[in-house]
């Protein structure tokens, strides 16, 4: 009887049995959900272990530095599968996001070997990589002795693979042939519209399709709803104000942050196209944004949408995803739409934030750490997280094609799959990789604040900002 049940799950893992057939047969056998879960984990573990010596580092223990995030929760929920597969143990320190990167920077810069692997964003690797704090993972991914044959690196979305690799040359193209793979994409977010369907129905508008429509629709929502404002975007004096909706729309017009000539960087925010985009963006915030926009971060933008204080956000799709659940007032009322700011553009070009896994270069057990990293970024774990937890957005194409995952998302998050599919081909990092990224992008946000506050006209502000940035680039030997 037990063998028969095990065989069922092994057939499912090898794709010889559909999920529907598996559920029907386990139901007939009277298996509980808990027992089915254990058998599925066992079958997945056996399948992974069949072609690779996963037990090579049995008995060793890796320590991880994690951000308090649903991605980390999904990993912890599935950690028994890792322990069973490898015979290794894992422990972790979890820190809230507000202080997380301070902790990472302190640990890495002091050369501490306490943590073997850690969560990071791709932008941060532009500092960590050239400083020698993290390991180029190409030497692991490309080594068949270290990476299991079913790892299927090519299954990871190409835009994400490219966005997490850089050759270390300021202005160097992400994902170039000589690029180092500084981290492994783990989960990501792209930027589109999340909107409140009942509010849109009440006012009688459809999700806007370009920037001109966004201005028009959000102004109408602000005027007609009599309370909630039209569109939420970030506005704090931080690089994080630029990277979500703003840069996604900006890039859609073909605008760049910097140009690179003969290895020298030059600010490109004062072109005619950039000025036109900035004028529209500033007008949108002045007419239809939150009153204290200059304090808005991820949290305020999301909270307002969830509480019904805003009708729409142009921000991370997973922010809209989270606000559609939990104890949010607008739970179940949110819809999602792709957004190409430029009416002439063929498709959206969302800039992405990628939570990734990186390896501490000072770590004392790098090979064992890689075993953890390849398990945590495997198809099997990605599937587990996407089906059972909030490990969205998954980074693997095969997971996006998974029926169970798609059914779950389609049922509770209408339009989410469509916004992803329309946008995914153009989703990547649109910033120029360079070591002054945080300083200069924060300066950009600071100037945007001045423009919205009418302290400085848009055109003049951008000219001054570009001059200031060029000067900083020259001082740093980059311009």
């Amino acid at each position: 009887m037990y063998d028969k049940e095990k065989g069922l799950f092994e057939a499912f893992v090898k794709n010889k049995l559909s999920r529907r057939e598996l559920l029907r047969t386990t139901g007939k056998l009277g298996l509980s959900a808990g027992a089915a879960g254990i058998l599925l984990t066992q079958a997945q573990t056996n399948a992974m272990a069949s072609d690779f010596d996963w037990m090579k580092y049995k008995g060793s223990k890796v320590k991880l530095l994690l951000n308090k995030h649903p991605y980390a929760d999904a990993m912890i929920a599935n950690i028994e599968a890792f322990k069973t597969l490898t015979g290794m143990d894992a422990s972790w320190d979890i820190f809230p996001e507000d202080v997380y990167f301070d902790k990472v920077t302190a640990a890495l810069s002091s050369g501490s070997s306490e943590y073997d692997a850690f969560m990071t964003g791709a932008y941060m690797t532009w500092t960590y990589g050239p400083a020698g704090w993290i390991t180029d993972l190409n030497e692991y991914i490309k080594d068949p002795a270290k990476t299991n044959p079913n790892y299927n690196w090519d299954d990871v979305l190409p835009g994400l693979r490219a966005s997490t690799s850089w050759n270390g040359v300021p202005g160097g193209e992400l994902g170039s042939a000589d690029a180092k793979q500084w981290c492994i994409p783990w989960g990501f977010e792209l930027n589109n519209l999340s909107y409140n369907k009942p509010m849109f129905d009440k006012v009688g508008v459809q999700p806007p399709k370009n920037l001109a429509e966004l201005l028009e629709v959000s102004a109408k929502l602000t005027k007609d709803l009599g309370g909630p404002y039209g569109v939420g975007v970030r506005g704090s004096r931080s690089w994080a104000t630029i990277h979500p909706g703003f840069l996604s729309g900006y890039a859609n017009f073909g605008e760049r942050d910097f140009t690179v000539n003969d290895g020298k960087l030059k600010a490109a925010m004062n072109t005619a196209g950039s000025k036109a985009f900035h004028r529209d963006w500033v007008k949108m915030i002045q007419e239809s944004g939150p009153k204290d926009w200059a304090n808005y971060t991820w949290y305020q933008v999301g909270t307002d949408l969830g509480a019904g204080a805003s009708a729409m956000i142009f921000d991370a799709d997973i922010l809209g995803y989270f606000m559609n659940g939990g104890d949010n007032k607008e739970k179940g009322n949110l819809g999602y739409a792709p957004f190409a700011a430029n009416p002439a553009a063929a498709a959206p070009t969302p800039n992405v934030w990628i939570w990734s896994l990186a390896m501490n270069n000072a770590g004392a057990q790098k090979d064992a750490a890689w075993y953890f990293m390849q398990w945590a970024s495997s198809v099997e774990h990605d599937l587990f997280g996407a089906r059972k937890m909030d490990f969205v957005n998954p980074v693997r194409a095969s997971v996006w094609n998974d029926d169970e995952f798609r059914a779950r998302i389609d049922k509770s998050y209408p339009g989410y799959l469509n916004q992803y599919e329309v946008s995914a081909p153009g989703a990547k990092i649109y910033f120029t990789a360079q070591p002054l990224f945080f300083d200069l992008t924060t300066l950009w946000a600071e100037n945007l604040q001045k423009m919205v506050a009418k302290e400085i006209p848009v055109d003049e502000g951008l000219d001054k900002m570009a001059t200031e940035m060029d000067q900083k680039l020259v001082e740093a030997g980059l311009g």
Partner: protein
Amino acid sequence: MDHTSTFERILRGILLALVVLFFMFPIFWILLMSFQTNESILRMPPSVFFTPTFDNYIALVTGEMRTAAGSLQLNFMQNLWNSVLLSTTSVAVALVLGVPAAYAFARFKFRLGEDIAFTLLSFRFAPPLLVLLPLSLYFKSLGLTNTYIGLIWVYQLICLPLILWIVRGYFEDLSPDIEHAHRIAGYSWFQTFRKIAVPLALPGIAAAGLLAFIFSWNNFVFALVLASADKQPVTVGALAFVTASGIQYGQIAAAIVMSVIPTFVLAMFAQRYLVEGLSLGAVKG
């Protein structure tokens, strides 16, 4: 003789009530928030009428938080315990070391005495971020990373200069004649210190200890850099309610209320000493 009219007294009462209301309102609002759900807190317009819930406090005590992304584990009680342990022990160690040192600086003239005193005071001026990186390297070599002993040692940067300088001022304000009389009676300097100087300086010592406790309690960055998640104080732990899937305002408010209680109780207990000690110790004749 009181020449204040009834009108003036009433006006003064009203003005005082307004000032108290102005300063106490944020604390009162946080207290109200701690008994509300996120939905109730975020409703527009805000209201003081709501159905109270103890869920926020229950979540903190049981260590489980429900969010938009599901259930999250919390270590708030561990954070609270860490704060109590680190602050209390650090202040105790600083008192043991600092009070005799303060007495020595106040009563005895010795070579490099002032230089040593100012060096100790300079620890208060050094920005923590400046010393943390070298400290973390030393901690790594000494095996003190992620230990309570290491953290208590580092917390002396906060406590020791404060206690030393406040208590020193207090000792200097006391007349040495009583101590001299005690010495003439045949007692040693240590007995004089223990039986005469310390009891007389007790208000100052209590005030300095309380201030050091408050500064230690509020510290954020030392444990963050030098220790693992299980040794973080409440100042770091409170940030756990700000998650990618939303801000748990009710639990933040409950955490603030709970984390204020130890300092509040201590301050109420030592209030008399605090005012007396600070005013006497700080003013030089």
